[in-house]
């Protein structure tokens, strides 16, 4: 017979949610009932009555959270680069570094969609990425060309293209990794 799990927090209800937290890189699993899982994020939350842009963002995040019960994001989920945790981000409405966008992406992307009405940048492009994008496109074109030539068994010509692709790929690494 399968064992029935009891919520580790209220110790009353049946546990249906597994909550994973990360503290200083250490994984910690909690088994909770739905109710406790929903409220987990708000433990110790300060009472905010004043309306500001920041707590507006925080309430937006809350509303995104309640739409599904995937409670992987809790206060202790931490960005490894800058140390920002999700609870603090919610409180101050500011991210700590570029990596935070990856760390908290699951929560951020829906928030950005709501705030900005889009999640795809169409404006100006930074020089380093612009160069990379151009090279990526060129490599992809050359590959197509090379494959067509191989089918025709024109191997010598294909080898020239192969070398050119290699050269571009090593150049790409340089563009991507040469910044201080």
């Amino acid at each position: 017979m399968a064992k029935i799990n009891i919520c580790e927090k209220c110790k009353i209800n049946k546990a249906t949610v597994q909550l994973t937290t990360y503290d200083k890189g250490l994984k910690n699993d909690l088994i909770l009932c739905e109710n406790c899982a929903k409220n987990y994020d708000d433990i110790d939350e300060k009472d905010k009555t004043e309306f500001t842009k920041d707590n507006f963002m925080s309430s937006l995040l809350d509303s995104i959270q309640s739409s599904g019960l995937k409670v992987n994001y809790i206060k202790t989920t931490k960005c490894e680069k800058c140390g920002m945790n999700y609870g603090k981000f919610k409180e101050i409405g500011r991210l700590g570094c570029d990596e935070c966008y990856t760390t908290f992406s699951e929560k951020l992307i829906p928030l950005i969609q709501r705030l900005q009405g889009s999640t795809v940048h169409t404006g100006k492009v930074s020089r380093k990425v612009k160069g990379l994008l151009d090279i990526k496109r060129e490599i992809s074109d050359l590959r197509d060309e090379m494959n067509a030539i191989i089918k025709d068994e024109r191997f010598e010509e294909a080898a020239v293209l192969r070398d050119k692709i290699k050269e571009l790929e090593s150049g790409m690494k340089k563009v991507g990794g040469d910044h201080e």
Partner: protein
Amino acid sequence: MNKSKLMSFDDFMTSAIISSRIRIARNTSVAPFPIALTKKKGEALKVQLKDRLMKKTELGVFNYKDLAKMPFNDAKVIVEKNLAGATILQNREIKGILTSKDEKTSVLINDEDHIRIQSIKSGMDLMGAWKIVSAIDDQIDTQLDYAFDEQLGYLTSCTTNLGTGLRASVLVHLPALTLTGYMDRIYQAANQIGMAIRGTFGEGTDIYGSVYQISNQVTLGRKESEIIGTLMEVTKEIVSKEMAACETILANHPVNIEDKVYRALGILKNARLIDLQESINLISDVRLGYYLGIIDKTETVDLEHILIDVQEGNLQGKAGKLVTNIDGLRADYLRKLW
């Protein structure tokens, strides 16, 4: 009252639009954003960024000011001149600012983002300001490893700046729309197309003298030129509504308005104590008189400069000594103008 006639639409645009401002937010991926930096690391990054910008780009001709070493009043003046938001007054140790000689162009280091590039132009010249900002951006891009994501664009500390990092804004004087109670509708309409109307001195400030700041709310999913183009269109539309409101006023309340304008002139010419809000409100009333043809242009003052000149830090700074009676200083200053 004389039979007044409104000026042409172009002249009206020139009078009502005080200034245009473009600023972009940029960060480097080599360090956490300023908010996540310790004081020590923030100070080191400030020096590093300043040196790099001054030595490797054309910003070498700019004037650098370290916020940490600056008297508090000088920092306040920077805010009053709209070169930075009030956030620079906190955590000043890690912040610095580069300004052009005319202080129309500036690069702010370690405020909310590592780099904020800004250009202010008189009247409606958003494209001119954008060209200046974008050229500086291109230069800095060669020197810093920008935090940029292929999907999300330029990564910023606050998600409200994400993507283009662009905030385009115009400062407009709308006394007739305010007087006729139309501003609520303007607020709603602007909001619906992704534009926000903010206070006289930027986000979170009140409206003084019917001076409003209109700016884009959305920074992601639209090209810079689209954002700027929309703002220009919206501003033009709002100013044409302001002109229509002036016509309504002329048709309906000539004596009341004439009285309001001359009373304002009387106070500005004679008051001995005047606070910031009252001064800007009165200057606005006088200017409305000019729009309506009640008084001559020579009786008005240039709004762009006076909005800075009548502020506390600026008056204090020009006095050259600590003055407690700022309202007196302001009244003296205004009497000399009229």
